[in-house]
């Protein structure tokens, strides 16, 4: 792009970090199903008395629904190319969800409960990561990034410490697995106990932090963004409450007994929250698909030559983001314009608003300023919309050039008028004043000559005085022709009256214009009438009728005459009227000008 590239926009291809390959996901999904089925079997067998899933049918149903819900949501997100790692995180969290049940498989291979013990600790970090990277796939604030990193690090540390030093035989809190740990290097029961208690309270604190961060994000987000966040953030807060409550209860009971009513209630609340969270994830996918379909419909409608700006309003409606704006890049002018060609400032990212640069063969076409919560807008804009954008950019470029041309014409006329006025003033204040002074001096000289009885000198001076007055009169007419002072000082109505006073043929002015208009409009109307009246006189017309009126935002000026033949094209007047964006037509009866007057 070189210097032509807008700096603040994020290149769209960087917005989507890498994802796991499709076969890996399919395998993970199958594994997830197997894990779920196995967990049911474990719960029905060895875990009957030691797991929530085994304690009752409700517990089993909640466990399976929550875990499978997460796995299903992860699959759906992966298959619909959701943002970032969201789908993979959901899959991982779903698998880990079943880990506490697998811990209870005491009569199976000792490796399984050992792994499950470590994996169980990762459900919470995965869910925190998943929630805080909604909906764009990236954590958007520093507290969120710190929290995600902290919970992962703590889970890894706790998992390693428990794997290496926790001897289930000496764990007073053991219930589901009191026998095996294949990773045990050295039995350090006090350390393991301390790690367990520390983990519990850290997790409780992190859960409260999660609630705070979620609340802050909701408070900060704009309308459409909040709509996207709510379905995931509200259940996440519920889950966090359950996690914190579990830590409080466990501090008293030590052993996590699934038949303890308080603990089971907490488990049920947490599971329900996870189920709702999974549902929120799936609904977000549905919403994104609906938006994409609407965007596709816009593409389909593009072949009907839309009006400038319609693409922006259509995209804004499709993405439920009324503040969405498209700025088109004009490489020639090194500036941004909107669809109608008006210059706009370069869009920049602000809190709650993101910008996406759309390029075509390396050149910037447009920059879209949109709500920060619209993930991967680049991926939603298909080739047809890209063509539409390119088309609208070209149109905007053309409109901008037209506007520039019109402004330039208006400036030329304005400058010429200012010069005319300046000339009239210079004549009035310069030559005319000096001629007046001269005529005064001549009078004084004449009075002196008369006093001395010098008749020849008196006669010569009288002639000079008459000559001076004649020149003064001619100069006055010249100044009036250059720019009538009454036009600037009293407006178009009085100026047309004076024009009729001095016209070479009878001129009737119809329509009373009392209002003042911009100087350019008044001058254009006046000189158009003057040129038309001159033309009528040249063609030998007997009289002319001038009509002037305001209709809407336009000043209508019509000059009709009874002269033979068509009116001349009136190039000068046509240029003036055209420079103001109006139109002038001439014909058999005279001319008609429409001048925009604001």
């Amino acid at each position, binding site marked *: 792009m070189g210097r032509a590239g807008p700096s603040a926009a994020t290149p769209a291809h960087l917005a989507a970090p890498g994802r796991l390959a499709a076969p890996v996901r399919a395998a993970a999904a199958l594994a997830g199903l197997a894990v779920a089925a196995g967990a049911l079997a474990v719960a029905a067998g060895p875990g009957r008395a030691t797991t929530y899933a085994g304690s009752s049918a409700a517990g089993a149903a909640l466990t399976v629904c929550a875990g499978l819900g997460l796995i299903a949501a992860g699959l759906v997100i992966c298959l619909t190319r959701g943002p970032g790692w969201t789908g993979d995180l959901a899959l991982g969290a779903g698998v880990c969800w079943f880990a506490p049940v697998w811990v209870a498989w005491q009569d199976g291979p000792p490796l399984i409960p050992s792994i499950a013990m470590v994996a169980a600790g990762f459900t919470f970090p995965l869910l925190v990561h998943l929630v805080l990277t909604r909906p764009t796939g990236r954590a958007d604030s520093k507290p969120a990034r710190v929290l995600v990193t902290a919970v992962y690090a703590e889970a890894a540390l706790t998992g390693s410490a428990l794997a290496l030093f926790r001897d289930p035989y000496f764990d007073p809190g053991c219930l589901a697995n009191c026998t095996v740990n294949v990773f045990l290097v050295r039995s350090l029961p006090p350390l393991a106990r301390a790690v367990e208690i520390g983990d519990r309270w850290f997790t409780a604190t992190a859960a409260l932090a999660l609630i705070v961060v979620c609340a802050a994000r909701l408070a900060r987000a704009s309308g459409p963004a909040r709509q996207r966040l709510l379905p995931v953030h509200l259940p996440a807060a519920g889950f966090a409450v359950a996690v914190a409550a579990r830590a409080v209860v466990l501090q008293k009971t030590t052993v996590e007994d699934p038949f303890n009513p308080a603990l089971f209630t907490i488990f049920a609340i947490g599971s329900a929250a996870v189920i709702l969270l999974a549902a929120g994830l799936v609904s977000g996918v549905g919403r994104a698909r609906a938006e994409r379909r609407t965007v596709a419909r816009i593409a389909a409608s593009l072949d009907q030559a839309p009006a400038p700006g319609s693409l922006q309003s259509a995209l804004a409606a499709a993405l439920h983001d009324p503040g969405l704006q498209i700025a088109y890049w004009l490489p020639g002018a090194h500036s941004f314009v909107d669809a109608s060609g008006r210059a706009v400032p370069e869009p920049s990212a602000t809190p709650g608003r993101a910008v996406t640069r759309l390029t075509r063969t390396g050149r910037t076409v447009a920059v879209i300023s949109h709500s920060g919560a619209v993930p991967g807008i680049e991926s939603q804009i298909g080739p047809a919309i890209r063509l539409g954008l390119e088309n609208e950019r070209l149109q905007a470029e053309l409109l901008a050039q037209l506007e520039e041309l019109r402004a330039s014409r208006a400036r030329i006329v304005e400058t010429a008028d200012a010069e005319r006025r300046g000339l009239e003033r210079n004549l009035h204040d310069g030559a005319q004043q000096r001629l007046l002074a001269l005529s005064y001096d001549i009078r004084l000289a004449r009075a002196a000559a008369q006093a001395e009885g010098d008749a020849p000198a008196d006669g010569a001076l009288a002639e000079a005085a008459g000559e001076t007055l004649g020149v003064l009169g001619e100069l006055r007419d010249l100044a009036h022709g250059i720019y009538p002072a009454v036009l600037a*000082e009293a407006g178009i109505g009085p100026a047309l009256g004076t024009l009729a006073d001095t016209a070479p043929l009878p*001129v009737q002015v119809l329509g009373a214009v009392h209002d003042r208009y911009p100087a350019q409009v008044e001058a254009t109307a006046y000189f158009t009438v003057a040129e038309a009246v001159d033309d009528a006189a040249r063609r030998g017309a007997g009289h002319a009728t001038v009509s002037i009126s305001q209709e809407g935002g336009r000043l209508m000026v019509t000059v009709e005459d009874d002269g033979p033949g068509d009116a001349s094209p009136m190039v000068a007047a046509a240029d003036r009227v055209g420079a103001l964006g109006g139109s002038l037509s001439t014909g058999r009866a005279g001319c008609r000008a429409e001048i925009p007057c604001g």
Partner: protein
Amino acid sequence: MRVVVAEDVMLTREGIARLLTDAGVEVAAEVGDAASLLGAVRVTRPDAAIVDIRMPPTHTDEGLVAAQQIRTEHPGVSVLILSQYVEPHYAMRLLEEHPGRVGYLLKERVFDVANLLDALRRLADGETVVDPTIVARLFSRKRRADRLDELSGREREVLGLVAEGLSNRAIAARLFVTERTVEAHVKQIFLKLGLDADPGSHRRVLAVLAYLRSTPLPTVLRPGQAGAARARQVSSPAPRQRSGAERGRTPHSTRAWPGSRCRLPLWSGSGPSPPGGWPRSPRR
């Protein structure tokens, strides 16, 4: 007689002041802009103010604005506007606000001291002064149907003097006829032109100027209809001007004019006069 001269070009201002002083008129103050003019009028209480129409700061119509202010605040002070524009619009604007004791003269005319003194004296008499060049221009205006053709030569002469702002008495003196003859002429002229204005009123100047600026249709109208027909297509479109034409038609009985705005056109003879009397115009 005491006057204040307001003119931003020093050469012209001093020329006028010198002419006046030489003619025995006291120049109470010489100023260069409208604000100083108003101050000078307040302080010196002159008989008349001679005001350039175009003065600082905007060089547009400061003079006209100042004239209206002087006439409103100091009804005893006449105002003579000096201009380089042969522009009936300005003269009529001046007259509409204050029909008596205001004048509009071209600058070159005032360097003939007789013209200047004549104008000042007429203003002191309560008359109106309109520059003959403006009246001549209106008379030479091209018309489709010229009712002026119906006037006799003498009637055209009287009409021109009415347009210049002269009272019947002044016209009579100028034409060496009796005042009754002039009255008869004026009545006849107003009848022929279809002017409904009271031929004796102060507003007749405005009515005549408005008539001269209009472009009557070539239809023959009875006198009673002419006013209404013309009001629909009067060529001077400013509201004040149009209402001026209407005022000209409005009978006094239906509209109460403030006394100060409707002075008797005839000089009562009670005004101040300089010692030794007024210098006479060579034309008289």
